[in-house]
């Protein structure tokens, strides 16, 4: 794989991404004026990525893993050029097809066929390119005559099929995939995986965001993003092992809030009321536990689950 620099198709260098926290809230002129008067316009920066660097070589398939909110999707958007990083750069050598949300940007009033043309034209293909690919797209999507019906009559599964078919059938060198491998029913899902495997054999480069182990069939390499940094980059089974350990076990660096949450829980161990109830429950997702307002999780006090912020 390491064939030198000319083989690099994706070059990500020192990418940092900052969001103004207030940008999320203020999106009206009224709000801006009101806050300016109240001197409430603090621009607290939220740093989503803090200097991420990696290279992806031609024909490589790389999995991006990390917990929710770690910055994986933002990184994918930067790689595809949708977002511009605050500092650093992401260079692409070759045509890139982002598969971030299937069926996004379809026009409900237009037919499936019209949407194929529109979607592909927006991705940057010419009429000639599209004309040549349309039969393959229609065949792959298995939509049959529905291709002549307006998209708004489609089910979400049909929409996803169409989106996937367009993305994988148009010629490109790099595919960016964001947790969309679960497309359609079992049969279609199988077909998608077969198609991806075929594309991989043809030498396409993949960058896949995923939580599941399913990506192991494509990827030999994984990059673990944690807290806006590359925590580990290497062989997928090793990285996945460490990642799974970190996610299920005690967090490596407990945040202050986590410590605080743990205190009352320990205090409650003395009270004999709750334990039986809590112990009966299987350790569910951390998010679910954190949502409970009653801090009665004594069973997990010795092995505290990480509360979601």
């Amino acid at each position, binding site marked *: 794989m390491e064939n030198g620099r000319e083989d690099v198709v994706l070059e990500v260098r020192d990418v940092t991404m900052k969001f103004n926290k207030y940008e999320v809230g203020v*999106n009206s002129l009224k709000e801006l004026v009101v806050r300016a008067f109240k001197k409430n316009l603090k621009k607290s920066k939220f740093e989503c990525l803090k200097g991420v660097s990696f290279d992806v070589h031609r024909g490589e398939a790389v999995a991006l893993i990390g917990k929710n909110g770690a910055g994986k999707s933002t990184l994918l*958007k930067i790689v595809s050029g949708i977002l511009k990083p605050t500092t650093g750069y992401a260079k692409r050598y070759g045509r890139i097809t*982002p598969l971030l949300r299937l069926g*996004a940007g379809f026009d409900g009033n237009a037919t499936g066929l*019209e949407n194929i043309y*529109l979607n592909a*034209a*927006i991705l940057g293909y*010419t009429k000639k390119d599209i004309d040549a690919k349309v039969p393959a797209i229609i065949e792959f999507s298995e939509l049959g005559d529905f291709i002549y019906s307006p998209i708004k009559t489609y089910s979400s599964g049909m929409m996803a099929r169409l989106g996937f078919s367009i993305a994988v059938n148009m010629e490109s060198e790099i595919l960016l995939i964001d947790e969309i491998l679960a497309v359609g029913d079992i049969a279609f899902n199988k077909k998608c995986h077969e198609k991806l495997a075929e594309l991989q054999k043809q030498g396409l480069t993949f960058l896949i965001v995923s939580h599941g182990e399913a990506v192991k069939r494509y990827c030999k390499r994984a990059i673990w993003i944690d807290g806006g940094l590359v925590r580990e980059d290497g062989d997928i089974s090793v990285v996945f092992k460490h990642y799974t350990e970190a996610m299920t076990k005690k967090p490596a660096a407990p945040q202050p809030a986590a410590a605080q949450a743990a205190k009352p829980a320990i205090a409650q161990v003395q009270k004999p009321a709750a334990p039986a109830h809590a112990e009966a429950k299987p350790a569910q997702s951390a998010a679910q536990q954190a949502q409970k307002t009653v801090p009665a999780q004594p069973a997990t006090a010795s092995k505290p689950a990480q509360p979601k912020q």
Partner: protein
Amino acid sequence: MKNKTGSITQRMYLMRLLVRRNIKNQYYRSFIGVLWTVLNPLLNMLVMAFVFSAIFGRHTDGLDYPIYILSGNIIFGVMRSSTSSSLTCLVGQSDMLQKTKVPIEVFPTANTFSALVTFGFSFIALLIVAGFRALPIWDGIGASYYTFHWQIVLVVLILPALTIFSLGISFFLSGLYVFFRDIRHIYTVLLTLWTYLTPLFYSLNSFEGTDSILPKIMKFNPMYHYVDAFRDMLMGAIPSVKTWIAMYVFAAISIIIGWLFLQAIKNKIAANL
């Protein structure tokens, strides 16, 4: 170089698809479909002509009133529909803009071209009305209210300026709306104000002799020049050099501001959708 021309053809193709989609969606699946694009301005004109001719009389500035009112409205309509549809176009496409790297300029541009296509249909409506008024059947004495002049073809020289002017505002508004979602309400009001400050159904001549400020500020209203030039042509006159300069200078100012603004905020748009 070849790559460059290839990408321009591609961009043109995308633009064509977007314009076609806009026009189709406008009258999607309505009873008589695309015919509405001609019927709509025609019927609107009839209503306005019916209402306002009672107030302003049959002739205005030497032009038959129905033609006066229709000509003003279809010129103003290019700017109106282009800007008001562009206002929300980037936010409306947020799905797509967050999913793929798209040159964002294509969306306001497509809207402006759609407005231009609608103008084409409205122009047909205008020709129908003019043809009708040119028949020697009126007044019971075989008089006609309108005569055609060759200068009407000069409208193609107004359109580039009008398009560029509308495009500049469309660029500006589409970008601004991403950050301030309440400007939609402000713009609706401003557009109404602008409509009434442009002599669309009244005539500036009716202010002669009064100390109204309106005629004095009118030369700063860009839309006045486009409307005025078009009416000159309909009456068989060629607009003055001053009018031509005003039309193209306003267009240039508008496109420069709009374009620079959009370039300045381009990289922040995807994060704010």
